[in-house]
């Protein structure tokens, strides 16, 4: 009877809402790291990434961490595998990982931390509105090349020679990041500059050996996958050779390097996780601007300074965000 149907239908009308939310397939994120699987830094950063996503309420998302280390071939294989598995979002840490993924043709949203000249390589249209499926956070700016040298010079005023150790990550379309600012500052400070490129671990040893012979020489280690992997070795080598060294990567100052000036990668990874969350919730990666860190920390290792025989001025110590004793 019609009347009965109408009456039976009324509760649903009154309820007003559909009874069940639409079922969603489980979201999946693949994170590509430049660390070995058991690397402490990698573990800390990935844990931060997971925690940030959890903070944003992404309880169901499946996060698959892939550990490629500094091995380019392995990183490329992992990138291929990641794209084949068609996750909702791919996360990359550092430029080599980003380039390994973007080298393959696909449209999976990609959030990076660490990229050199993404606009210059055509990964994005512009930094404020990437326009494609790639967005993320840069770690360093090219002007830091001068800042690093100035900081090293302030710590070791006697320095006469300085070498900027670059990795392939620093390569841009028309040269190298940091190099220009480095050279300009060196000229202003009357320091003899040298810019060297290390493609592989073995390239580092002769550079350190050269500097050891100079005396009054300092080393600046630019960021990159190779630096991440070889940082500890460089710390040991420079300590042995008594070369004051400034790392762009913060943690090597804590691990025995003289000093470091760079961003807090943990914070950036967390902010990148926020981007991942927004993309998972439907945001268009093309409309999320590429962001840069607002803060760089100066870390000074007094132990290293002491063992090298340098006395760090109190003015510099006052500037330091962190002093390792």
């Amino acid at each position, binding site marked *: 009877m019609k009347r009965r149907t*109408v009456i039976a239908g009324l509760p649903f009308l009154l309820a007003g809402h559909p009874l069940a939310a639409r079922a969603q397939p489980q979201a999946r994120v693949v994170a590509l790291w430049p660390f070995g699987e058991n690397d402490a830094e990698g573990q800390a950063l990935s844990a931060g990434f997971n925690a940030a996503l959890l903070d944003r309420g992404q309880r169901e998302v499946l996060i698959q961490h892939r550990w490629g280390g500094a091995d380019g071939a392995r990183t490329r294989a992992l990138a291929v595998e990641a794209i084949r598995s068609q996750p909702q979002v791919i996360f990359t840490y550092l430029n080599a990982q980003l380039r390994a993924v973007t080298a393959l043709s696909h449209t999976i949203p990609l959030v990076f931390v660490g990229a050199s000249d993404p606009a210059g390589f055509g990964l994005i249209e512009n930094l404020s509105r990437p326009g494609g499926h790639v967005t993320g956070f840069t770690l360093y700016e090219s002007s830091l090349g001068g*800042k690093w040298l100035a900081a090293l010079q302030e710590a070791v005023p006697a320095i006469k020679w300085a070498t900027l150790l670059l990795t392939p990550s620093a390569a841009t379309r028309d040269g190298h990041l940091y190099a220009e600012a480095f050279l300009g500052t060196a000229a202003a400070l009357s320091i003899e500059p040298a810019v060297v490129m290390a493609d592989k671990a073995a390239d580092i040893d002769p550079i350190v050996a050269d500097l050891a012979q100079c005396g009054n020489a300092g080393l600046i280690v630019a960021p990159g996958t190779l630096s991440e992997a070889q940082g500890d070795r460089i710390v040991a080598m420079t300590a042995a050779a008594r070369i004051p060294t400034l790392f762009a990567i913060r943690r090597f100052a804590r691990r025995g390097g003289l000093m470091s000036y760079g961003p807090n990668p943990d914070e950036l990874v967390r902010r990148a996780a926020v981007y991942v969350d927004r993309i998972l919730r439907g945001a268009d990666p093309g409309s999320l601007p590429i962001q840069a860190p607002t803060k760089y920390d100066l870390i000074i290792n007094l132990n290293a300074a002491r063992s090298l025989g340098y006395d760090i001025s109190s*003015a510099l110590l*006052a500037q330091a965000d962190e002093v390792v004793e």
Partner: protein
Amino acid sequence: MTASPPLDAPGPSARKPFRLPLSGKFAVAFVGLVSLVLLINGAVDLSLNFQEAKLNAITVQREKAQGAAERVEAFVSEIGNQIGWTTRAEWRRVPPDQQRYDFIRLMRQAPAITEAAYIDPSGREQLRVSRLEPDVIASGKDFSTSPRFTEALKDKVWFGPVYFRRGSEPYMTVAVAHAGRDPGVTVAEVNLKLIWDVVSSIRNGETGYAFVTTSTGRLIAHPDLSLVLRDTDLSGLPEVAAALPGNGSAQDYEITTGLGGGLVLAAHAAIPRVGWIVFVQLPLREAMDPLIESVIQTVALMGLGVLLASVAGTFLARRMVVPIRQLQDGAERFGAGDLSERIVIRTGDEIETLAHRFNLMAGRIQESYETLEAKVEERTRDLNRSLDDLQKAQSRLVQSEKLASLGQLTAGIAHEIKNPLNFVNNFASLSKELVDELIEVLKQASLDPNTRADAEETAELLKSNLDRVVQHGKRADSIVKNMLLHSRTGSGEHRPVDVNALVEESLNLAYHGARAAKPTFNVTLERDFDPAAGVADIFPQEITRVLLNLMSNGFYATEKKVEGGELGYAPTLAVATRDRGDRIEIRVRDNGTGIPDSVKAKMFDPFFTTKPAGEGTGLGLSLSHDILVKQHGGSVDVATEPGEFTEFTITLPRAGAATAESATAGSPANDPKSP
């Protein structure tokens, strides 16, 4: 009357005006009323809900705007406070190293400041500390005409336009003039991304968002960074225009066209310190979502209400109409004449009263109807009785007339027959004597014996024949006498007579007469005389004749039965008298053969007899009837059962003869032609 409808009429229904039944009217009224109430209620509800939803949304928006404004203000305040460290009047006399240290400290305290610079009172840059570049001391760059210097000196604080470093980092230059006379200026490059973070993180419903403009309507922060990058001027946007200072609008919310088109509910809050305005906007549709839900609910409830009202109305109307239908049916039954049934309605209202009245009315009608019937019945009975009486009188009249005319006829005939009969009788007697004389003569004459014998024999035969002629002549004479008697009434005189004595005398006479005629005759006589019978004025001779006639008939009947040879039969004749007031009743009952029905009908007719020829004249009962009815004004009835009994009942008025005589005076029977 079944008149066929006119041919041009389309039908009875077409001409009949539309009639809504009572239940329909009631249901319509009920449902209409409920619907009206529901509609009014719904309308009031909706308007209240709309106001409430609007107020709620506005409150929420306002709170969000104020919250956002507080956060932005806190951000700006922090920067202002931090810069304030370096704007003391004596700061320019501080050594450069200390100045640098102060800037480094400033930047550590205020993460948004990426670069700080000191411009001396002459407009030259004395110190620049940056997070990204090597510090510069005494660069001597000339900013004396730059707005960051001139405007800051003028207004104390200057906020530069938003610009982008590296393409995606929104920055603003904040210049603060130092205190004291002839001041310098501290310039800070502030990363607005932190404001942007504040603004982007303001989630307002699904699609609502917040943005910040300067007091002139320039966009400072918006979730879409590209808008900020384009240095958008929003002073043309209605919601912004209304909020800009100097427009005098006290309202801090607006329903207007939003940035992307479409109606939005926008609230704003000012940040007085910097003169910025924070806007929080939500599409009106989303803000009014609860309202739409409530509209759906209200409409559904209204529908449900109307439905329930319809069901209830129909039900109640039917309930109400049922007793009316019963009343109607009852009235129809009464109308059809069925007054015995009663309308049973137990609704306890006016309809029950009405039904009660109907019942009363029906009861009254039934009562008067029954009385009427009884009366009609009574009258009919009376009429029937009168008709019977009339018919009896008529038959009596017919019988009397018949007898009267017969009497007249017989009187004439008897008179005419009597004379020749006398001749016959007389001459027969004479002839008989003559035959005797002849025989005597013959005796004397000598004749041959045979001839004598023959002659004597013939004479004897003649004599016997003459005897027979005489005998039958006498009988004829008796018949004629009776016929004459029949035609003549009032023979003798009437006088008061003791009825019992008369009856006793008649009985004795009859008994002995019968015994005389037939010596073997035997019968038991039963007398039952009422001493109160008394005296009646009658013609004693006539009545005696009647009684004798009846009694001799009774004897004859018992004799017949005796001849039938029934065993143990005791012939009985019972005679009784009864006083019946002004009447006397005489009953003569025998237990003889009884009278068959065929005879009973004709037994009072003249010349009707069952007796063999010669034994009865057929005038006895006819005559008796004549005497009793015509002469005395009485009656005679007979009750009989063939083979069992016959009972004649005579009723005589005590003063019967006198009245009857006057009544029959002038009758033709009273005026017979005398012989």
